[in-house]
């Protein structure tokens, strides 16, 4: 038992040292090996150093830009969008599971409805993933050395920002009383389409694996996706907070005359994309004829 605990604590020490710069990691690990301290003491010492290093980094403006410009505003929006889209999917899923008959696929209207829903779910999932990827890429670009702290903060905001709120779907349907639709599905959606793409975006920047042309194509795709899903994004902030939007002059929600006061949120979601585009644009050489 003692042997296992020792191995676990030294594995944790090794993990904690990954947050240090490579040259410092070597020197610190060497010092700890030479001093023959216990695993717990080594863990405390390394975490103390990591905290001091992180605190020093947060005296600069870049981590704060990442936190206030990306983590908080976009994390909160993604938290609402992911929960609302998980709830909408849950409603469709539960309905189809309850009434499913293979023979229905023979009816063109039924097929069209089913494919329409699948298309909408795929678009929403793609939009969530694309926005999260651009956020990860921007976090790594703005503040590389604090990226794991800002990424953890981002994940926390995504999972916690909707606490204490409800959605119209939850208020009006009893499907969500069950654990799967009410708790598990929203968490799975957030994990699969927000947290994992966020980590992918961070790794893509750290390893510089995406070429500028790919970034340009990706940015165009994100803009198109955002335009396509923007009404749903706005709904996630209205229906997704348990209230109903204004139906406009015809008093019917979902028609073309509905006012859309929340349209700027789609623009906000594109801000990491705009940042990425700005970083890959070729810089014009400075004129020297003024010398």
């Amino acid at each position: 038992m003692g042997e296992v605990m020792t191995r676990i604590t030294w594995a944790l020490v090794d993990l904690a040292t990954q947050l240090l710069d490579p040259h410092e990691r070597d020197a610190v690990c060497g010092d700890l090996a030479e001093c023959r301290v216990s695993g717990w003491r080594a863990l405390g010492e390394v975490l103390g150093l990591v905290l001091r290093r992180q605190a020093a980094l947060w005296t600069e403006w870049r981590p704060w830009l990442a936190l206030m410009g990306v983590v908080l505003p976009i994390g909160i929006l993604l938290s609402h969008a992911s929960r609302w889209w998980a709830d909408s999917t849950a409603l469709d899923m539960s309905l189809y599971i309850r009434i499913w008959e293979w023979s229905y696929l023979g009816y063109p209207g039924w097929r069209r409805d089913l494919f329409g829903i699948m298309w909408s779910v795929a678009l929403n999932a793609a939009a969530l993933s694309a926005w999260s990827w651009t956020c990860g890429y921007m976090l790594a670009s703005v503040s590389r050395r604090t990226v794991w702290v800002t990424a953890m903060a981002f994940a926390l905001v995504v999972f916690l920002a909707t606490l204490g709120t409800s959605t119209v779907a939850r208020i009006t349907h009893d499907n969500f009383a069950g654990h799967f639709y009410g708790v598990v599905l929203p968490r799975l959606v957030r994990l699969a389409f927000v947290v994992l793409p966020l980590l992918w975006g961070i790794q893509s920047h750290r390893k510089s694996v995406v070429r500028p042309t790919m970034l340009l194509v990706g940015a165009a795709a994100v803009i198109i996706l955002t335009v396509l899903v923007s009404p749903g994004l706005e709904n996630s902030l209205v229906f997704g907070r348990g209230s109903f939007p204004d139906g406009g002059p015809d008093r019917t929600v979902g028609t073309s005359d509905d006012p859309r006061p929340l349209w700027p949120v789609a623009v906000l979601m594109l801000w990491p994309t705009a940042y990425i585009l700005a970083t890959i644009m070729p810089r014009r050489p400075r004129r020297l004829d003024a010398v």
Partner: protein
Amino acid sequence: MLLGEFEYLMLTAAARLGDKAYGAAIRQEIEDATGAPCSIGALYTTLDRLEGKGLIKTWMGDPTPERGGRPKRMVRVTPKGVDAATSFYSAVRRVSRGVAWAKS
């Protein structure tokens, strides 16, 4: 430039160790002298601060087997560091004149 007390302890330990001054050795020297634990966090952040002020120079040494094949962060006190430590020590001596604990 007036040093902090921990900065002075580190400069003094590094100067005493000479060519053998590196992270773990300085830490041991400080712990022996003060009888108090010296954390790696305090040690490495103070090393960076002293290097930033130009009072020491550090570089990565060769790996050794007792350190699991990992290199040491070697430390050397610069002439500016010697001046700063001398000033600090002189100030402590001057300010301590005539007080009870400085009579011995």
